[in-house]
């Protein structure tokens, strides 16, 4: 496969995806027949007003929630029918997640938080120690390996969370408003880190954001309005 073909390969694809929340008598159609694809190597943003279904979409793609109808295809394989534990394996080995809340374990140091998913994957100790050190270095925290979360700023903690998402070399990184809790300097660091990862390692990134400024970093924007794709 040449580099061009690789770039054109569809990594993740959704077809006619709907997610309806049932709350008592009321049905909330959070996603309505959404169809699109993300190509390998893309840095895509999902944008739209509050309540338009951005997070819901990300959760379906990231196998954190199950759609009411529709298909999710990853590298040509339908993954919507996997069992819970298969989904967990899939998320552990192929997906990375960064959320608005970084939720690091308070008793673990930065590097321990980071290598936890690698341990879970059954990698050897020297392997995950090396990978953890390396990935924390990549997010600019090479000097903070043994700090506990409470000894770090919000921006630093979020970068630890990013390192945790990257440790198992995922095919795609999902990020839901990763900068919403950060000040503008830290936000800029995070976005530029994403851009660097995307450009230097070819990591595919799908990020929910409502910062219009972020548009200039991404290669593609998916607009949502009331749970449907909106072309702009």
């Amino acid at each position, binding site marked *: 496969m040449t580099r061009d073909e690789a770039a054109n390969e569809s990594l993740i694809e959704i077809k006619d995806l709907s997610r309806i929340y049932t709350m008592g008598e009321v049905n909330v159609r959070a996603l309505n027949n959404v169809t699109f694809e993300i190509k390998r190597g893309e840095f895509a943003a999902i944008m739209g007003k509050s309540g338009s279904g951005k997070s819901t979409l990300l959760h379906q793609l990231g196998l*954190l929630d199950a759609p009411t109808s529709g298909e999710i295809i990853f590298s040509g394989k339908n993954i919507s029918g996997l069992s819970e534990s298969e989904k967990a394996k899939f998320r552990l*080995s192929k997906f990375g997640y960064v959320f608005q809340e970084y939720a690091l*374990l308070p*008793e673990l140091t930065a590097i321990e938080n980071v290598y936890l*998913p690698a341990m*879970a994957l059954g990698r050897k100790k020297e392997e995950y120690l090396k990978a953890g050190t390396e990935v924390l270095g990549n997010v600019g925290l090479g000097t903070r390996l043994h700090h506990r979360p409470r000894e770090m700023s919000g921006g630093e903690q979020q970068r630890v969370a990013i390192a945790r998402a990257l440790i198992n070399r995922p095919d795609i990184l999902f990020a839901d408003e990763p900068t919403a809790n950060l000040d503008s300097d830290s936000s800029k660091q995070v976005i530029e880190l994403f851009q660097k990862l995307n450009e230097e390692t070819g990591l595919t990134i799908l990020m929910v954001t409502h910062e219009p400024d972020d548009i200039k970093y991404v290669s593609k924007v998916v607009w949502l309005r009331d749970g449907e794709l909106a072309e702009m």
Partner: protein
Amino acid sequence: MFNNFKLSLFLASKSMMRGNKSTQLLIIFIMSLIFVNLVFIGSIFLGVTEATNKQVINSLYSNVVIEPKKDEKYISDVYSLEQKIKGVPGVVGISSQYVTGATLSYKDKHGTWIVRAINPDDEMKVTTNHNYLIAGNYLSKLDENEILLGKEIAGGYGGDLEYNSLGVKVGDSIDVLFDNGVKKSYRVKGIFDANFIQTNVMAYISRNDMESIVGLEDKASQILVKTQDNGNEDRYIKQFLEMGIKEEIKPWTVYAGMVKNITNSFDMIAMMISAIGLFVAVITIFIIVYTSTISKRKQIGILRAVGIEGSIIIQSYIFQALFIVISGIFIGLIIIFFAIKPWFIEHPLKFPIGLASLLILPEKVSANAVSLIIAALAAGFIPSWLAVRKTIIDTIWGD
């Protein structure tokens, strides 16, 4: 599988090593107290039961009692019966006795007690009462007109039934009116305190003396048989029956009905107290794990989102619960064997049945430990399972 185990152990150990140490020590201390309590209650009751049983054997009935056939007042051909029984391996002593009621009087005081007429040489091989004289001397075979009194009969030695006692000293002369109407004077030769109220209300005279009173020979009201081991009475009784002994043969346990009642009540009480202890242990661990899962709700959700399975998180909490309980048991064992047990050996408890110490049975201690561990498993499992049962979305973002 092994990898999951390693991961949950990692999470558990970090969480304990870097969590709040003083809280953990406190919880471990609570567990050790609960464990000590479980073991202590059971052991003290066992100790009292054991002491009572020993008293019934050592000072009252020995191991096996042979009684007259139904409808007969005495056992006959005692001598040949004794020879037969002596031949059974494991029999270490036989004491044939006459037992009768008698009214004892001294000055204006009198009362009715049981008098056992014994061959002192035989009796010393069967009961231990000769070791518990508090005044005077034990009987000897040829004694006539000499009587040995339990301290409750003699009085003046702090008995529980002083109001009934005669108030006599060694050397005093008392009148004895036997059930068959014969009346004789006796010199108090000795006073004993077997630490057992049922024994301390008896009197002993020599058997030779008695035979002349009742005019009987080679007869007995009961024969006490001492065996070298306790607890195998049924085996000996079977052997006696096989030898063709026609008299009634009973193990000491039939005379210890009172003990059985006490034992049953003790078992009930011990069970209730144990249940409460275990319940407190479950609640304590449950609260610890529950508050931890609540305060770490988002972290747990994110770990699961990242792909770390809920079962690993549950396991890590179970490990923590186990650590707390096992440390508690360990400290509890130290407290029991290095503090409580030596203390009770030094300071046994005084009961009407005598002195009782703790009887700590390894199998009971293990059972207590196992039940506490099972309690911890449940108490660690339930709240963490509740935390992991919710969907990932609810765990991270729900309220």
